[in-house]
C-alpha cells in the first residue's frame, strides 16, 4: 500500500486541507466533521499540523491559515506594484507594459458594457479585480515554493460571498420592491389573480444559496484537484517528465480558464439581478 504521506509535502498538504475543510461555514456541519487526518499517520507525526496562527480573543480561540493569507498579500502586492509601474508615465504611444494593461482592462470594460449596458462601468472594477487576482492565484503554483491561495476553501468562499452580497444589494438597489416580488415567481394564477407562491420562494432562496456553494467549490475543486493529481502522478512516475506537462495543463490551462469563469459568473449573476427587460 503506497501512502500519499510518503511524498514530501503531502502530509502538511493534506493536513492543511483537512483543517480548511473541517471548518465549513455552518456550525452544525463543523460539529459533525472530525479532525482526523485524511492520510494515514504511520510514522508521520507532522500530519494535521498546518501553518496556523492561533490566538484567543476574549476566551474564543481564533485560528488563521497563514499560508493562503501570505500568498494573497503577495499577489495583491504584485498587482499594486505592476499597476503603479504601468501607469506611472502614461504615453500617447504606449510601451509594452502599458499596452498589455490597456488590453486587459479594455477587454473587461467591453465585456461589462456588453452585458450590463450603461451600468457596466460601475461593476467593471469588481469583475476585473476578481479575474486579475484569481488568475495569478491559480497559476502561482507553477513557481516552486509558492502555493495557490485558491486551494484553500476560505479564499474561494470569501470571493463567492463578496459576489453574493454585491449581487443582492444591487438587486435591491435597482429593483426596489420588485426584487422581492421576483423571489415569489413564478406565481400561481387563478382567474387572472396572481398569488405569491411560497413554495417557489423557498426554492429561489435555496437556489441563491446553491449559487454561492457552487461558485466557491467550482474554483476550489478545480485547483485542489489539480494539485492532488500532480502530487499523486509525481509519486507514481517518480517525478519523471509527466508531472511537468500535467502541471502546465492543470495549473496554467485550467487555472486561467477557471479564473475567467469565476469572473464571468459574477458578471452574469449581477446581470440577472439588475438588468430589467
Amino acid at each position: 500500500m503506497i501512502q500519499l504521506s510518503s511524498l514530501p509535502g503531502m502530509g502538511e498538504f493534506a493536513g492543511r486541507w483537512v483543517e480548511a475543510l473541517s471548518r465549513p461555514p455552518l456550525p452544525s456541519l463543523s460539529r459533525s466533521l472530525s479532525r482526523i487526518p485524511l492520510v494515514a499517520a504511520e510514522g508521520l507525526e507532522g500530519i494535521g499540523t498546518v501553518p496556523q496562527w492561533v490566538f484567543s480573543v476574549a476566551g474564543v480561540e481564533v485560528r488563521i491559515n497563514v499560508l493562503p493569507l501570505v500568498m494573497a498579500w503577495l499577489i495583491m502586492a504584485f498587482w499594486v506594484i505592476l499597476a503603479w509601474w504601468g501607469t506611472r508615465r502614461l504615453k500617447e504611444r504606449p510601451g509594452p507594459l502599458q499596452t498589455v494593461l490597456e488590453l486587459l482592462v479594455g477587454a473587461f470594460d467591453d465585456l461589462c458594457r456588453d452585458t450590463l449596458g450603461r451600468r457596466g462601468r460601475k461593476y467593471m472594477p469588481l469583475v476585473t479585480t476578481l479575474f486579475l487576482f484569481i488568475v495569478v492565484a491559480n497559476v502561482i503554483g507553477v513557481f516552486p515554493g509558492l502555493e495557490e491561495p485558491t486551494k484553500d476553501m476560505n479564499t474561494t468562499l470569501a470571493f463567492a460571498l463578496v459576489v453574493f452580497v454585491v449581487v443582492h444589494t444591487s438587486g435591491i438597489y435597482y429593483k426596489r420592491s420588485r426584487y422581492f416580488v421576483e423571489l415569489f415567481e413564478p406565481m400561481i394564477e387563478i382567474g387572472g389573480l396572481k398569488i405569491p407562491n411560497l413554495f417557489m420562494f423557498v426554492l429561489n432562496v435555496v437556489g441563491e444559496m446553491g449559487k454561492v456553494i457552487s461558485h466557491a467549490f467550482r474554483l476550489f475543486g478545480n485547483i485542489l484537484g489539480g494539485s492532488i493529481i500532480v502530487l499523486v502522478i509525481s509519486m507514481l512516475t517518480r517525478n519523471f517528465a509527466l508531472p511537468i506537462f500535467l502541471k502546465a495543463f492543470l495549473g496554467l490551462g485550467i487555472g486561467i480558464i477557471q479564473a475567467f469563469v469565476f469572473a464571468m459568473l459574477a458578471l452574469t449573476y449581477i446581470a440577472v439581478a439588475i438588468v430589467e427587460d
Partner: protein
Amino acid sequence: MDEITLKNLFAPEGMAALTRLCGYLGAAFAIGMAAVGTGVGNGHTADEACSGMTRQPAAKDSILRLMLISQAVTESAAIFALVISLLLIFGSNALPSLEKALALLAAGVSVGFGAAGAALGSGLTGANACKGLARHPRTQGALTVTMLTAQAVVQTSVVFALVVALILIISSFPGNSFIRAMALLGAGISAGFGAIGPGIGTGLAGSQAVDGVSRNPSASALLTRTMLLGQAVAQSTSIYSLVIALLLIFAI
C-alpha cells in the same frame, strides 16, 4: 488480511477490510462513470469541430482553440472524479466501520454519476459552440464567453456531488448501525443520480444559447441572461438532491 473471508467480512475483525474494499469499489464507480460522460461529451465536441472545419477551413485555428478550451472545461468533471478516486485508493481509513465503508462507496457513486451527466452536458454545449463558430467565425469572442458561462453552470451539479463526496470522505462515522450506513449510501446515490439530469438538461439549454449567439451575436447578453434563468430552474432538482443528501448525512 488473508484470514478475512466473506463470512467474517461484516464482523468486527473484518471491518478494516470491508472499509478498504468499499473504498476501492467507490473509486471504480467514480472514475468509471465519469469516463463514460466525459468521453462521449468530448467526442461530440470534436465531432462538431471536425465537421465545422470541413465547412469553413479558413477558421480552422479558432475552431481548434475553441474545441480545446471546451474540452478542458469538460474534463474538469473527470478531474473531480479522478481526485475522489485517488483519495479513496490512497487515503487512510483511520476508523474503519460499517458506516465509513458505505460512506466511501457513496462518495464514489456520488461523484461518478454526477460527473457523467455534467460532462455530457458541457460536451453538448461545446459541440454547438464549435458548430456556430464555423457558421459565423467573427462571433468568436461572444461565443467563447457564452460557452464558458454555460459550461460553468452545467458543472454546478457535479460540484454539488463533489461537496457531498468530500463530506463523506473526510467525516468520521464510527458507528456500525446498518440503517445509518444505508442512509449514507443513499446520500451518495441521491447526490450522484440527482446530478445526471440537471447536467444534461442545462447542457441542452447552453447548447441552444451558443447556437443562438452564433446566429444573432447582438442578442448575446439577452440570450445569456435567459439561458441562466432557465438553467437555474433546471438546476433546482440537483439542489433538491443536495438537500436530501445533506439531510441523510446529518439528520438520520
